[in-house]
């Protein structure tokens, strides 16, 4: 199908982009890689007045070391992120989960920030950002800079805390230190299908005990959610198969998984439990 008509703006700098956004109005859309937006346009499920294309804002593509954190520019592509030495070293969960997003051609175009701002709960990266306690860096011409923790960023189904004139400029990811283990467990029917459920987990062990554990769930609600009950049960306790198994049984607590073509809510809850156990097992295997 054919996209509807829209105005097209292509700022050359972040400043220009920020100036353009308020004028573009409520029905403007920011175009990053377009890999989520283009299908919506072609199916005429979205009718933006204006697209603001960030392609030429080179600064937004950078991935840089920021002391005890990494900052991944919003328009760094999936391809760039998963192959970036800094990301692979300090945020291996991001690299691993990004490698499961769509397919190579889509990963060449699709962007890290775009996936997060799209806020599709079936997307893989929102749950990862949530599990890592990432911080979203937003900026607007009127309000300046704002830092939004991941847990406050995903507001509702495909809705974020970003204001219409606000741009996601990057994401701050705390660097993984010693003792951390990570895993993203994605379950889908075919290689190119969306996750029915995904589990992103980060575990820090100190001398056989679980010192810190964070679990983000993909597609278990209208927004990505943390498996808080599992985290609480495991945190501070000795690590054992039995403990993982028992704690994983709590993975679906306080979730409201969707029911759709690819899985009922009940099945998703079941998967969340099984996949959480597997993800925790893999993250603590080393």
């Amino acid at each position: 199908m054919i996209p509807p008509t829209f105005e097209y703006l292509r700022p050359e700098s972040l400043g220009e982009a920020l100036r353009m956004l308020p004028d573009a109005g409520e029905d403007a859309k920011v175009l990053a890689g377009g890999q989520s937006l283009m299908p919506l346009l072609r199916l005429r499920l979205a009718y933006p007045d204006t697209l603001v294309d960030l392609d030429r804002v080179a600064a937004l593509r950078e991935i840089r070391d920021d002391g005890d954190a990494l900052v991944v520019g919003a328009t760094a592509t999936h391809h760039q992120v998963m192959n970036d030495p800094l990301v692979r070293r300090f945020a291996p969960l991001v690299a691993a989960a990004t490698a499961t997003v769509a397919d190579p051609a889509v990963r060449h175009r699709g962007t890290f920030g775009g996936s997060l701002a799209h806020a599709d709960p079936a997307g893989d990266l929102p749950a990862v950002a949530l599990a890592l306690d990432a911080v979203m860096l937003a900026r607007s011409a009127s309000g300046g800079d704002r830092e939004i923790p991941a847990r406050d960023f995903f507001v509702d189904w495909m809705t974020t805390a970003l204001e219409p004139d606000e741009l996601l400029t990057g994401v701050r990811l705390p660097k993984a230190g010693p003792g951390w283990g990570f895993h993203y467990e994605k379950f889908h029917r075919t290689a190119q299908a969306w996750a029915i459920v995904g589990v992103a987990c980060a575990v820090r062990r100190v001398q056989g005990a679980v010192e810190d554990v964070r679990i983000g769930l993909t597609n278990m609600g209208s927004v990505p959610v943390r498996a808080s009950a599992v985290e609480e049960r495991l945190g501070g306790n000795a690590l054992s198969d039995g403990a993982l198994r028992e704690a994983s049984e709590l993975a679906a607590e306080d979730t409201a998984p969707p029911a759709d073509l690819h899985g009922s809510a009940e099945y998703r809850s079941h998967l969340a439990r099984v996949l959480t156990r597997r993800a925790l097992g893999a993250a603590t295997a080393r």
Partner: protein
Amino acid sequence: MTEIGRARLRSEDARLVTGRTRWTDNLTPAGTLHVAYLRSPHAHARIDRVDVEAAKGRPNVVAVLSGADLAAEQGALPCAWQVTEDMRLPAHPPMAVDEVRYAGEPVACVVARDRYSAVDALEDIDVDYTPLPVVVDMERAVQDGADLVHGDMGTNESYTWVFEQGDMDAAMRDAPVLLERRFVQQRLIPTAMEPRAVLCEPDGEDFTLHSATQIPHILRLMLSVVTEIPEHRIRVVAPDVGGGFGSKLQVYGEEVLALLLARRLGRPVKWTESRSEGNMAVHHGRDQIQRVALAADRDGRVRGLKVELLADMGAYLMLVTPGVPLLGAFMFPGIYKMDAYSFSCTGVFTNKTPTDAYRGAGRPEATFAIERLMDDLAAELGVDPIEVRRRNWITHEEFPYDSIAGLTYDTGNYEAATDKALALFGYDELRAEQDERRERRDPVQLGIGVSTYTEMCGLAPSRVLGSLAYGAGGWEHASVRVLPSGKVEVVTGSSAHGQGHETAWAQIASDRLGVPFEDVKVLHGDTAVAPKGMDTYGSRSLAVGGVALFRACDKVVEKARTIAAHLLEASEDDLEFGGGRFSVKGVEEAGLTIQEVTQAAFAAHNLPDGVEPSLDSDVTHDPENFSFPHGTHLCAVEVDTETGFTKIREYVAVDDVGTVVNPMIVEGQVHGGLAQGIAQALYEEAVYDADGNLTTTTMADYLLPSAADLPTFTTDRTETPAAGNPLGVKGVGEAGTIASTPAVVNAIVDALRPFGVRDVPMPCTPERVWTALREGGAR
């Protein structure tokens, strides 16, 4: 080296790997107008008003027409198969006029100077609908008082077709084993990679229509019947066509309308569908509810098989819609002997996209049921599934064999194919691993599925089609023209859309005429070039069209023999033909090549009396029987009992498709067939919600397997030549699809039997496997 049996690389490939293709959408003559269709968002509604005025005012728009605007000239789309005398055949306008009966049915169209403008203008067409009750479920549709798809018919039943052979009461009475099952053949979307496209160019009273079709000849005739434009004024071209799988064996409304719009506007008119509209508007496949009962003795011998089908027609009957399930009627008994067989099928209207042929067309559905039953019978008796089949199948000494369904299987060797498959598969080792995994309660269980199938292809003997009230014959045509320079043109009525006819047909001609492969050019797919033909479907091309060519080549050789004998002053009986040369027996040096004979035939200076100049021939071949490929497929799956996910571990296919012209092409057909059959078992389903909306309109929801989802197949063959044709060929286009679906589902059920699971509905999604495990465990 003889050409027949040689893995020739394909002549077609050069243009396809370089992008120098002629897909219909690639063709845009100067001045072409572009069409876009407004489609019904309702599954069933009355059309109260269609307001096209605003759309007409949009930029670049040339015309906007509703169904009502074209009512006087658009006619009704054809159904060529009146399966019973009292079959109910509703009128099917190319564009709906006063009622829509499935979501996606065309309601109005825009013709514009470019495609973007045409699509934009659709949004300005205003239609008032009054929603009507929606019929989605077949079993409810046939109950008294059900809502109706066609109100004036008073019923949702189109027809009931029955077949009975043997004494069913005796077979069923006191049967020691009686298996009763309800299987659902889910609805599938054929999904050829090339979406449909049609371009119609007017030239005075003549029209040239390019279409992504499997059936240029049938389409030409039907367009003429529907539009009343004389047949000789219509030329249909199927240029490069990107797959069909039955979905382009159709006369579509968009094709009829392209012709009518080109006539009305006097300019070339083109329409190319998008995938998301195609999923709603290309005919669907399968969609049956099967109630089957199999009676057997305690030793596993089958006594009788009873089959009752409800077949979903969708909202209308299209080209061969009602006949598709009846092709299955002949195949339910499969390769087995039995005393009694009964079949009945009721065609049911629903508010869904019409169904029609999809790869296998009736035979996959039938094969699935009998092969699932044979595995269940084995489980019931505690016998190995291979053994239970051995006790029932027709042995190779018993051919030709009159099947209980009334067919004569000419040849076959089920023992040989099965033995070969078992050896390749490592059957005993896998069974041992299965036992071991069961014993240690591995969360990932192993299952082994068997499918020993046969199918009928080579459609079809015209007399048989006549007895089934089909609206045409089943012959095929071939012409051979030896050009003055000795090069050869072959014209075939069977037009390929991926099957490699340009290569295989050249091999046959090269082999029979003794000319180099490179000297043969195969022409097809254009009614002006190949005027006679019955087209490509039902694994018929080689078994009917290839045999027509074989015979046409022999006819050329016979004519050449007469001329050669005359020129050599020898008796025809004394001439031998081999390697492209006629020679006099015993006198090696006395001879003429076929090229030399051709020159003589062209010059015509010295021909025997009564022999016409030039060397060419025409043959229209009507097969006397179907052909019956068969084989044994074995599948091993690993089922994750925690998530329900199924992974195919091993897949072995041993097929017997008779004589093989090009083993490389045959293997490719098997691979592709397997992928589609496996996809029915595991992935694909067209899903409608309770309101009759298709929820799988995109490839994000209608899941097709990628390379990452499929295993490497092990394929091999046995070669039992068909007796019914001089080439010994049977057909291979559908075998893989027919055999593989039950092999996969049998494997899944086999893995899960210890958990009390007896069946998993298709597609066997992880959730369905998980649900079956929970229900099985609770039993």
